[in-house]
């Protein structure tokens, strides 16, 4: 059957009907956008919505990764925990009202209140509150020193206070009002229309959208997405699996680009003995043996494919503070066996392994481990169930991955898993102390230094087996002139037709 499909896919397709001709960019997503209120739209889709229909105080330039003022015109650190923002004047919401400092204060304070139950807590949990200190000045205070404050703020869209108080989240979901480059509206069948905002402020670093209309189509099945790409029903899709992407490369109407995201895969090891106080993995020699046993090159090259590369450190290589200069473990089953024997496990041992994303990769790892005598038993679950296992001390080994919310800072990954808390399976006092120092300082030099030390210790102690980066296939119309994002955040407002 695959041969038939491959043969049919290779046939030249007729020119597209939609897209360029009617200035409508049809983009396909597997998951639906659950409403248009960005604070109640979970996941990556909700984050993307906040960039398209709304604006935040700060914007991260996708090329330079520098922070630029968006709804603010500048900011300063007032004290260790407080940032002061100058609010941009003359910016209009989609309903014509003018943005004020009070809108900013209201939105931040609304999101911070636990009763609001907004979805993306990760972006909010650090904030104590906001207050308007002058006509166009807002101060945001953090609960503790927050070196990633600006990163977080890029993901907090600003709402019109009066309108939102009037209509609530149901009203906002039905008729969203933001300041963003697009005005959003729900269409039937879980599609959403994003029309160019004609009054979008000229100084925005996002720029005015060259394409007049974008339609978000929810197509859960990837093969259907591919069929729509082939017939011009879609102009853009991402997360297309490698086998399908390879086939699409032969089609002259489409462009296929494989690009890394911030997501990295790794294997967690129960070095602290949380799942079982007598687990062999408490012995560093065993953890190093596991690191030597896994053929990461082969996994990255043959199973992940594309631009994937092996990582040696517990972070994504581009992130601030991520160093690659750490202890490395080459693929060496003989050495792994020797280390196991030295630790008293010449006959290996049995271990429960949890996984949720790529079964192929998990099975490759199990195969590698079996070759040195470690008998892994795979437990395949949904992601939340795996997290539950981890947090209830029942997961000795997880084939895990982490996207850092596309934050360009190791603080979005290392402290999450090495803070001595519920998600930490190493419970190493030294790493925790370093991570705490990094998390409570605003000095980039000091932070880089302590994170480097923490990453060195994590590698040397083999608390994790860092595996590989996880690139994504982007497939889009050859008519489309659009940069492929390096952070998994497609900026359709920059796209133009060729």
């Amino acid at each position: 059957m695959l041969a038939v499909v491959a043969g049919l896919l290779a046939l030249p397709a007729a020119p597209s009907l939609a897209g360029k001709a009617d200035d409508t960019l049809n983009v396909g997503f597997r998951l639906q956008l659950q409403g248009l209120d960005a604070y109640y739209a979970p996941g990556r889709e909700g984050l993307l919505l906040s960039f398209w229909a709304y604006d935040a105080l700060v914007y991260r330039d996708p090329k330079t990764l520098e922070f630029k003022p968006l709804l603010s015109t500048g900011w300063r650190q007032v004290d260790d925990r407080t940032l002061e923002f100058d609010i941009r004047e003359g910016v209009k919401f989609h309903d014509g009202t003018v943005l004020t400092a009070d809108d900013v204060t209201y939105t931040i304070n609304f999101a911070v209140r636990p009763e609001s139950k907004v979805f993306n807590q990760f972006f909010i949990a650090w904030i104590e509150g906001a207050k308007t200190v002058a006509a166009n000045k807002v101060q945001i205070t953090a609960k503790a020193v927050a070196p990633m404050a600006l990163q977080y703020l890029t993901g907090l869209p600003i709402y019109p206070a009066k309108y939102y108080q009037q209509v609530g989240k149901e009203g906002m979901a039905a008729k969203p009002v933001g300041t963003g480059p697009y005005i959003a509206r729900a269409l039937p069948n879980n599609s959403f229309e994003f029309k160019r905002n004609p009054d979008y402020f000229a100084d925005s670093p996002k720029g005015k959208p060259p394409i007049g209309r974008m339609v978000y189509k929810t197509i859960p099945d990837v093969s259907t997405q591919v069929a729509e790409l082939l017939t011009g029903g879609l102009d853009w899709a991402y997360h297309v699996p490698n086998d399908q992407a390879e086939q699409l490369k032969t089609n002259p109407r489409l462009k296929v680009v494989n690009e890394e995201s911030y997501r990295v895969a790794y294997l967690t090891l129960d070095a602290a003995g949380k799942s079982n106080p007598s687990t062999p993995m408490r012995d560093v020699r065993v953890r190093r043996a596991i690191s030597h046993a896994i053929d990461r090159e082969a996994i990255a090259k043959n199973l992940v494919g594309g631009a994937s590369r092996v990582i040696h450190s517990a972070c994504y290589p581009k992130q601030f503070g991520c160093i690659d200069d750490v202890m490395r473990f080459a693929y060496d089953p003989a050495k792994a066996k020797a280390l196991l024997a030295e630790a008293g496990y010449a006959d290996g041992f049995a271990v429960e392994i949890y996984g949720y994303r790529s079964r192929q990769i998990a099975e490759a790892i199990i195969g590698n481990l079996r070759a040195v005598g470690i008998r892994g038993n795979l437990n395949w679950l949904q992601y939340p169930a795996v997290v539950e296992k981890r947090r209830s001390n029942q997961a000795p080994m997880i084939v895990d991955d982490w996207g850092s919310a596309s934050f360009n800072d190791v603080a979005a990954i290392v402290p999450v898993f090495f803070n001595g808390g519920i998600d930490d399976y190493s419970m190493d006092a030294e790493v925790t102390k370093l991570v705490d120092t990094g998390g409570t300082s605003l000095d980039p030099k000091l932070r880089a230094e302590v994170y480097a030390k923490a990453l060195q210790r994590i590698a040397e102690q083999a608390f994790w087996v860092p595996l590989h980066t996880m690139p994504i296939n982007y497939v889009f119309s050859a008519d489309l002139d659009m940069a492929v994002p390096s952070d998994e955040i497609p900026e359709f407002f920059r796209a133009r037709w060729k």
Partner: protein
Amino acid sequence: MAGFVLRRCLVAVLVLLAVSMLSFGLLKLSGDLATAMAGEQAGADYVAFLRKEYGLDRPLPVQYLHWLGRTLTGDLGTSFYYATPVTDLVAERLPITMTLGLSALLFAVTLSVPLGVLAALHPDGWIDRVVLGIALLGQATPTFWLCFLMILLFGINLRWLPISGTASAAHYVMPTVALGYYAAPAFTRIVRAGMIEALASDYVRTARAKGLRPHAVVLQHALRNALVPVVSVAAVQLGFMLGGSVVIETIFALHGVGYLAWQSISQNDYPVVQAIVLTIACFYVVLTLAADLLNAAIDPRIRLS
């Protein structure tokens, strides 16, 4: 008759209760809602907060009884993921699933009744073999495979039909055929078997002996009797089509109840899952009841017993 209906309704309520308990339990086994809702980056504190906020920290039977109590007052709750009440979510999507289910049933019956009759008229002849072959193929073909073949042929190569969405009637053609073709073999076999039996019966022989035209014998006398089981099977099949179109709705991006169910299950959004399970169970119960009553109307023997 009234006693019969009453008894059936009582059984129906018990069935619904059992079904809701089962789906509640299964969903709870699949993972923690609070963790799913909190999202990948959320810390343990927030997960604990959500768990408390939504009452997920209470014992399972308490959670179930709480849900049941509200349901009995007509409140199916609010989805954890959408800001809208569950009833609205289901009601919004039901027309799509109903359109698909009914058109697929119509397609299945239109295809299988003539085929079944044709096969029965020439039992073991080549027509019969071809018809049974078609039926066998329908039952053996995985639905998703048929969907993709149609997409390749009619969507990509011939460009006759749109591939995904619900914008026009044309959008329903491929999903209808895929869903209907899967259900057709059951009908074909039943019609064929029923017709062979009816054609061999005494009353048909009598009708023939009376000199009635062959058409009248086949359509008015034999088919009427052969259709009795078709009605009950159709009721069950419609229930299946309303609930079992998950794969087809997912492939053709029809955002109906099946797709909503799939999505809610993967997110542990149990108010939605419970509401859908109940809705579909209700359909089954009502349809089975309707089939019994219809059968009683067609066949007096059922009424008498």
